[in-house]
């Protein structure tokens, strides 16, 4: 006990800095865990508030989870959620790192800042607004793309009714929105790399490309692994706005745009069963947790120092 207190004393400044974050996690991540019970209840209001409602609601076992797996849709939404997220993680990683390296190599620092800000900006737009941007390109009778196509004598495409284009559109739009933000982390890491390494390489006659391949990328690897592991934990969470607002909730596109989050929203928006939505959230968290554990285990086997824990 004394040792513990002494430890606290010695690290008090650090602990103080951690405190706001710890409090945030306690209130918004740990306390709500109790509510997970609702996933196994048919939630009904009680006049004595939330806790009484939770306690008094009828236990229904796993019934709240059934709707996620009851039809063909289960396969489609799981496939879409996983494949899109894998694509976002991999392509996003490549583009973010490439972008960060390019930005760091631009000699004119002022210009580099302009590019960086320009690419950062889409991150702050809400998906609803991005959805309208996309609509101005893809609108069937007034859209930019269809007007260009008609200039070339190609008949216009019913973008919002033809699923085959949408995997590409969604990945493109997601990249456009997220790359600027993700590249910042890598850019910061590059800035932290010891300049003398590059100087030594240059003296040895290494080209730009060799420097990048043999210095920058190996030194970025730990960050890349951490970022990817964190992203894997969210692989079962789809970005609702991207899959709902950007395709304008068009039914004919569902085969390629329906993901877990939109499925849950559409299924429960009229009945509003709290138990079933909690069940969906719990399912996503558990799968995410398992995936993080597995991928961390794999990373640890390959390279112990790069693993998260």
């Amino acid at each position, binding site marked *: 006990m004394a040792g513990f207190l002494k430890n606290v004393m010695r690290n008090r400044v650090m602990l103080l800095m951690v405190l706001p974050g710890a409090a945030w996690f306690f209130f918004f991540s740990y306390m709500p865990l109790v509510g997970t019970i609702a996933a196994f209840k*048919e939630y009904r209001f009680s006049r004595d508030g939330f806790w009484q409602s939770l306690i008094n609601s009828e236990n229904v076992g796993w019934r709240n989870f059934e*709707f996620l797996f009851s039809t063909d849709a289960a396969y489609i939404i799981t496939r879409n959620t996983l494949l899109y997220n894998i694509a976002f993680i991999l392509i996003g990683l490549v583009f973010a790192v490439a972008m960060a390296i390019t930005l760091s190599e631009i000699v004119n620092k002022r210009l580099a800042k302009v590019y960086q800000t320009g690419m950062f900006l889409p991150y702050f737009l809400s998906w609803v607004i991005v959805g309208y941007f996309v609509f101005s390109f893809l609108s069937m009778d007034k859209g930019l793309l269809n007007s260009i196509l008609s200039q070339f004598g190609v008949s216009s495409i019913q973008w919002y009714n033809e699923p085959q284009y949408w995997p590409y559109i969604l990945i493109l739009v997601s990249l456009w929105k997220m790359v600027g933000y993700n590249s910042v982390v890598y850019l910061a890491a590059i800035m932290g790399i010891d300049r003398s390494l590059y100087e030594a390489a240059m003296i040895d006659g290494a080209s730009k490309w060799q420097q990048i391949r043999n210095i920058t990328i190996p030194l970025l690897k730990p960050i890349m692994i951490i970022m990817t592991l964190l992203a894997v934990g969210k692989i079962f969470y789809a970005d609702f706005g991207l899959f709902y607002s950007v395709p304008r909730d068009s039914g004919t596109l569902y085969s390629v745009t329906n993901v877990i989050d939109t499925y849950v929203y559409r299924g429960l928006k*009229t009945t509003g069963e709290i138990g079933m939505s909690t069940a969906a959230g719990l399912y996503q968290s558990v799968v995410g947790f398992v995936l993080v554990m597995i991928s961390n285990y794999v990373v640890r086997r390959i390279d112990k120092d790069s693993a998260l824990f």
Partner: protein
Amino acid sequence: MNKGKGRLALIAAMLAIVLVVGACGNNGGNESADGAEETAELIWYTIGTPQKDVTAVMDQVSAYTKEKINATVTMKMIDWGDYQQKMQVNVASGEPMDIIFTSAGGFDYVQNVRKGAFLQIDELLTEYGQGIVDTIDPGFLEGSKVDGHNYGIPANKELPQQEVWRFNQNLLDKYDLDIGKVRSLESLEPLMATIKANEPNVTVFGMDKNHVPYVPYDYLITNLPMAVKLDTDDYKIVNILETDEMKQALATMRKYYQAGYISPEAATVGSTSDLTLSGNWFVDRAQTQPLADNQWSATYGYPVVSTPASDAIITNTSVQGSIMAITANSEYPEKAMEFLNLLNTDPVLRNMVDSGIEGTHYEKIDDNRMRNLPEAKNYDMPSYSLGNNMLLNLNENDPDNKWDVFKEFNAEGVASPILGFNFDSANVSTQMAAIQNVKEQYWSALMTGTVDPDEYLPTALEAFKQAGMDEVITEAQAQLDEWVAEAK
């Protein structure tokens, strides 16, 4: 060392503060319990953009109600788009409240009755709500019963719902078109053809993704395909997509879509307000109420005329368009009922709640007519959600007999065969979630003619079947049969 201890104490104190702040959200508002003389402080949640002068007006209202029934009122407004979600949270967390707005659309009435959000008010209504029973159209109280009990007071307004075709009169006049023979979907064709030929830039048939061709059926749940025919005698529930009427309507919609009458975006647009604002449309379908043509014309700034597309039918949805319920956790259920009784019978109170303070927000021009003052923009309330509409003062341009016309319209309404039957989907909630998803996938594209029904309808029906449509219909049919047997 001493300094270090001080810091630790500080950390502990901060933690303690955070914990206390976090925990104290739950109590509060519990002061009164005993003493019948104590003034009841009613908390009233309602829908609409929060208004600047709500507190000022509610002070006036409270002064009035304190004198009449010894109760004061605090009104909390929640904006249109947030209402559903915020009320879910407020009710689920047991936030103190007494009266809340609910309807078939926002914070669903029947679903929340089933979840136990509202107090059952059968006895309260007989004891403290006699004025309501005597004043509002009995169809409302009958139609808003759930499983045989009342859980809320519907606003007295138009009772049935009737679909109409609305026309842009400028275009009717320009091409000298006659709407006298229009009634069915098919009967629109010659008119639409004329406009299409002469006005290439006009959207001939305006609609958004929620458009559903009218067929003479009443839906168990709005926008889900389970329905009962209006002139039924066997109370059979069918999938609307399997009926001949809907099949024919879908074929017609497809024909109109291919003829270019319908916008190619129809299946994905959420509203047609850009069309109505610009006047760039010819016909659309809307739900009417008495004097609606005048109102539409005034709002859009150009003349709009309408002609019926259906009979006036009293359905669950039309009856449950605006309800004020007493919450299950209300501190003062009796006072809340007394207040609702007063609100629905006392013109002074009702107009104060609706228009604000006389002389500040509005002025009287004669006994029952008023005119808004510039300050009215700080207290601009949606009338339909605040109780008995027929007590309201008339606006400057309203005809003298406005409320008589409403009463006539209400008297002409025909009750749907399933008026008062509310399907309880708790036993089939898994299937319902799947069906919702199937519906979202196929509905808009089919209903707007965007896709070919010959190809898509069989696929949609198959998907509904897979999602468990048959089980839902069997369950609903059992409930309906029981309800019919009880009613007879």
